[in-house]
């Protein structure tokens, strides 16, 4: 198989950065998107500094990708934002930002990426959900709902993209020490971890492991699945 062409949103830090580093180590050509400058400096890494919710900017990214690479093999919709708040205290604009980033951006990237994946021998789309979906945590209503949308989208997309030889799956990380979880109170995180089968923090490498499983050529029959880390669900 030729080197994989991989597109990762939210590649600037945390899980996205770890995924990018993993793919580069595997010999892939990696394109990352993020709101800030990249942490990675590698001759097979290209970075686009964009807001993934800005449709015009995303359109520009895909134009450039088509011009440079023609083919896309992997899309990882990793960009996401959190926001722990009670429903009664959440401004509509805050809820809209979460849904736009966590769901609509992934939808738009998937829509565009599919056009470039038709020429891939094994197209792969991986979305990032969260254990907050099955755990139904108080204070996570909007965040978890946006990820529930991603899960349903994943399952239906799996059916729509299968005729093109593309799979679509999701991974739901347990708490991992990233910028997103840094804003959540420690006791809330601990309560969540205590409900897991494996009662410890996850690591970015745990997510990488599941994603790599989805990406393997042998995983062509694995689609429409959501795998949670830590035994949640």
């Amino acid at each position, binding site marked *: 198989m030729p080197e994989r062409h991989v597109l990762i949103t939210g590649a600037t830090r945390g899980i996205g950065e770890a995924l990018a580093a993993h793919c580069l180590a595997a010999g892939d050509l990696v394109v990352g998107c993020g709101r800030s400058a990249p942490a990675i400096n590698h001759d097979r890494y290209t970075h686009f500094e964009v807001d993934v919710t800005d449709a015009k900017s995303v359109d520009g990214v895909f*134009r450039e990708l088509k011009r440079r690479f023609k083919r896309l093999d992997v899309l990882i919709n990793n960009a996401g934002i959190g926001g722990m708040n009670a429903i009664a205290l959440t401004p509509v604009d805050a809820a809209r930002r979460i849904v736009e980033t966590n769901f609509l951006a992934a939808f738009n990237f998937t829509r565009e990426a599919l056009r470039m994946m038709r020429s891939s021998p094994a197209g792969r789309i991986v979305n990032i959900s969260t254990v907050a979906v099955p755990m139904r945590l108080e204070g996570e209503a909007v965040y978890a709902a946006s990820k529930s949308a991603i899960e349903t989208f994943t399952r239906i997309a799996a059916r729509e993209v299968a005729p093109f030889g593309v799979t679509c799956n999701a991974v739901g990380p347990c708490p991992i020490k990233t910028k997103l979880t840094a804003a959540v109170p420690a006791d809330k995180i601990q309560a969540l971890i205590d409900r897991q089968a494996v009662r410890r923090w996850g690591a970015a490498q745990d997510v990488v492991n599941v994603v790599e499983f989805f990406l393997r050529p042998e995983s062509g029959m694995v689609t429409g699945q959501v795998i949670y880390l830590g035994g949640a669900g």
Partner: protein
Amino acid sequence: MTPITSEAGQVGAITEAAVQDVVLDAIRLANLARDTGAQLEVSAEAPIFGPDSALDSLGLVALLLDIEDGLRAIGCEVLLSDERAMSQKRSPFRSVPALVAYITGVARG
């Protein structure tokens, strides 16, 4: 030829005849993968999607993506997305003439 922008873009010189050629070529390409009893009509008046066509919704998606590729090859960059796409009666993709008019309209902004 000047490439156009997607969805509601600006076009260079694109003619309905050129768009029709791309659409008919894409239908011929689709037929290569279809059974003899499920061939799509290849003509300037042919239905594409709806009660008079054998094309299902996933087949329509593949056909439209092939048409996008064909248009790109002649310098016309469009993204064929429309909320009426799957409507049996109002889909702009329901027939060759409707699709050609739709693409030409989008391409010309």
